[in-house]
């Protein structure tokens, strides 16, 4: 099928799809006039039942924890897939690419420290204020990427050796699944909250939400670092080979 025929077919079917899509969307409740019972129920009961003030966080790690388990493993599987596709015999030769400006290096390293603290804060208070393991994990991985940007590929590789990072990723994903079994053993249902709910609005609240939150943070940070590392490795090392 050539390009013109394909685009012609697309135009016809897209027009049909657009018509159906707009037709179905105008059947939704008017924007801003929300009335779904599940969300309303969670907003009404979550704070009293779990003592967590971030209802999105407690939805992810408690009420819908089983869905999050699936998501954790989508993340894990996709990252393993990227590793398998991009991995080759690792070339120890590293291009000399350090940032030479002292000013950039200094500012970069100060930013790394600030981003690390920000990431830890976003994770730690994930079930109290906006944030959580997923969001904080990405911020933490960003701190490691900044080491590459403001330092060098060598610094990034030295700071995030492959084997420990991959072990951390697997442990994060595994811990989530194991915490589910702890809930099963002590409370009779997989992923049910098994710790005391603590005091509302403090770090000591939400019971096992805190543990699941940290397990997720470790997995997401490690997964993102693995992705950065694999893509940087493809980009950095064989550049010279590709150009010849």
């Amino acid at each position, binding site marked *: 099928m050539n390009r013109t025929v394909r685009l012609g077919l697309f135009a016809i079917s897209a027009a049909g799809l657009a018509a159906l899509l707009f037709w179905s969307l105008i059947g939704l409740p*008017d924007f801003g006039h929300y009335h779904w019972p599940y969300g309303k129920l969670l907003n009404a009961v979550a704070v009293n039942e779990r003592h967590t003030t971030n209802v999105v966080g407690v939805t992810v790690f408690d009420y819908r924890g089983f869905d999050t388990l699936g998501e954790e493993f989508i993340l894990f599987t996709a990252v393993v897939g990227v590793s398998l596709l991009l991995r080759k015999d690792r070339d120890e030769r590293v291009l000399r690419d350090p940032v030479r400006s002292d000013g950039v290096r200094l500012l970069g390293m100060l930013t790394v420290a600030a981003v690390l603290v920000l990431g830890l804060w976003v994770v730690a208070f994930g079930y109290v204020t906006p944030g959580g393991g997923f969001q904080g994990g990405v911020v933490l991985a960003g701190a490691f990427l900044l080491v590459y940007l403001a330092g060098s590929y060598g610094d990034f590789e030295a700071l995030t050796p492959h084997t420990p990072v991959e072990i951390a990723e697997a442990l994060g994903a595994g811990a989530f699944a194991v915490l589910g079994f702890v809930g099963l053993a002590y409370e009779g249902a997989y992923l049910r909250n098994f710790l005391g709910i603590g005091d509302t609005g403090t770090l000591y609240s939400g019971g096992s939400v805190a543990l699941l939150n940290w397990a997720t943070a470790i997995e997401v940070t490690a997964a993102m670092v693995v992705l950065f590392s694999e893509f940087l490795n493809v980009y950095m090392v064989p550049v010279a080979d590709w150009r010849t």
Partner: protein
Amino acid sequence: MTYLPYAVAAWLFLVGLYGVVSSRNLIHLALCLSVMQSATYVLLLAVGYKNKATAPIFRGIPVGHPAVDPVVQALTLTDIVVSVTVVALILALALDVHKQGHTVDPDHIAGMSG
């Protein structure tokens, strides 16, 4: 009566789909797929939105104060994570295709040209 956010979602989906169909570069194709997926974020957040409501975070706000839906926000979070990892996987495949066939144009990949 406001349906603008829903229309934006539908438009993003169709524009992304056009990009996927007409793409001449696998990297461009992966990004068009993210645009399509952005339609789902807009749609999910739009159906959970409530006029004069706050975020579903009750720190300093009494329980019972109108808040937007936490379930669709949690779904959007899931959606974004899946999107990022899928794009990473597609980009890895694109690198592999380039290594094998020295092209990233979907029309020129042997055995795949329609």
